[in-house]
């Protein structure tokens, strides 16, 4: 929301230019360009298989790209410049870059052998060097924020899907990320549990967190997005304000996709 009121000349938090990605022969991303301003909430829509997840995974270099470049917070992801030449970063170098990016997965991916609290404090203590006390205090605040204070000692298996996903969001927030990536966070949930997760995400959007959200929840896109991107076949087909892209789509493929949600 604050993205609209940013001063002129503010640098985008995420810059993607001409991103190409193939798996063997299959070209999945065919030249993606996208800027995300600090505080902006971008929702990516598109049919299954259009490359949305792959694009998200390229942003934190879970997948490497074959052409183009991606920059987050002024750093080119996966590479550094040495003696005027672009050099691949080591695994540990990439690990460092990822530490300011939070990610929430479709399948939650909580650590099943750890309690909710242990899940949340793992990265802050182990990677970000916080003290156990600070990490625990912060984790309890985050659990309060997602409405799960009572579940701190529970194991993931003892929670409903919606509760697990809210823990996963708290876990990602615990590293104080500059950017949050959500890959279909509600797609694995029973319909009656979708609302609680979307409500949590709307809160985060209001608080000015920069978010890129892949979802099929058109309602969420209308309400919370600053910008909606429609992807199809590895291309960005249409991009703009939600009222334009969703309310008045220009491209026939966007129209066809959205017509299924009416």
């Amino acid at each position: 929301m604050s993205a609209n009121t940013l001063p002129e000349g503010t640098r985008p938090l995420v810059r993607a230019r001409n991103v190409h990605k193939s798996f063997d022969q299959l070209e999945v991303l065919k030249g993606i360009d996208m800027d995300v301003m600090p505080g902006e909430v971008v929702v990516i829509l598109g049919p299954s298989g259009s490359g949305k997840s792959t694009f998200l995974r390229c942003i934190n270099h879970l997948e490497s790209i074959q052409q183009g470049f991606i920059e987050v917070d002024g750093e080119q992801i996966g590479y550094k410049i040495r003696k005027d030449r672009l050099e691949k970063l080591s695994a540990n170098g990439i690990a460092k870059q990822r530490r300011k990016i939070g990610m929430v997965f479709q399948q939650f991916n909580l650590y099943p052998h750890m309690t909710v609290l242990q899940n949340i404090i793992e990265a802050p203590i182990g990677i970000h060097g916080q003290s156990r006390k600070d990490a625990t205090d912060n984790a309890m605040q985050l659990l309060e924020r997602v409405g799960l204070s009572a579940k701190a000692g529970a194991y993931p298996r003892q929670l409903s899907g919606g509760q697990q996903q809210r823990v996963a969001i708290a876990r990602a927030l615990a590293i104080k990320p500059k950017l949050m990536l959500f890959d279909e966070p509600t797609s694995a949930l029973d319909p009656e549990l979708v609302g609680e997760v979307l409500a949590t995400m709307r809160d985060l959007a209001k608080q000015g967190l920069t978010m890129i959200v892949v979802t099929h929840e058109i309602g969420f896109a209308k309400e919370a997005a600053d910008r909606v991107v429609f992807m199809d076949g590895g291309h960005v087909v249409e991009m703009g304000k939600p009222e334009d892209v969703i309310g008045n789509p220009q491209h026939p493929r966007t129209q066809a996709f959205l017509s299924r949600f009416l």
Partner: protein
Amino acid sequence: MSTATTTTNAPPSGGADFRDVVTAHAPFRTGRLVLWLVVLLVAADFIWICAHNDGFDWPVVGQYFFNPTVISGLYVSLGLTVVGMILGIVMGLVIAIARLSQDRLASGFASLFIWFFRGTPLLVQLIFWYNLSTLFPRIGLSIPFGPTLIDWDTNSVITPMTAAIVGLALNEAAYMAEIIRAGLLSVDRGQAETAEAFGMTRARALWRIIIPQAMRSIVPPTGNQLISMIKATSLVSVIAMADLLYSVQSIYNSTFQIVPMLLVAVIWYLLITSVLNIGQSYLEAYYSRSERRGATAAHPAPAAAIEEASH
């Protein structure tokens, strides 16, 4: 429609159609009882025969059970088991990780290691290590095809003890590598990816996220390995290592009480493996604690959670 509703809502006491399962009892099974009696009878008879068979010579068994030679042999067997197992697990972990790595050199070396040490009999490996000096009279460090940096006389390095440890550990490492590799592969791929997305290094992800989850499938076969290992230590008696079997052999070689002395060893082996079985079931319960539903979820107290998180 309305009749159906009233029927299903009828109280259990409302007729012969509904009998609360609380009142159910198990039927009496005569066949099972007879089977139990027969089995117990046969077992009792067998014990009776064994106890009164002079060939077993139970008094001798009792007399030598805590004999100092036997006890020191027992310590050697236990020591070899512990050292061989620890080295085997550590090397097995390294080899399993090497086998799973993208690096061709590492995975190739790991495959070769496993192929060789699983593919040859342990007895042969032990004799081979013991006789290393006939192949390589001196062992040391040198630059390949170049000068030697440091070396030792093989016979001074390879004692029965070191030959036994090296033989048992390398053999165990090959088996443990396969067990650990299977365990690591059993963990959901999404876990490694999540750790990666959070910026964990590979080593930390393995240690904190993957290995603890792999333990559930690693512990049971490792328990088997440990029990095999205890028995495998009896092979070292061929290279004159004074383990439990070697000590009872050394006694019956002069007293000729072969069966009772072997019984001493058998009972000790059974005692140790029984203790290990109990330890294994505790370990298994520990590593499946997150599987259990109920209990912890019902406890809302964050204090309890903090306590849990701090160990």
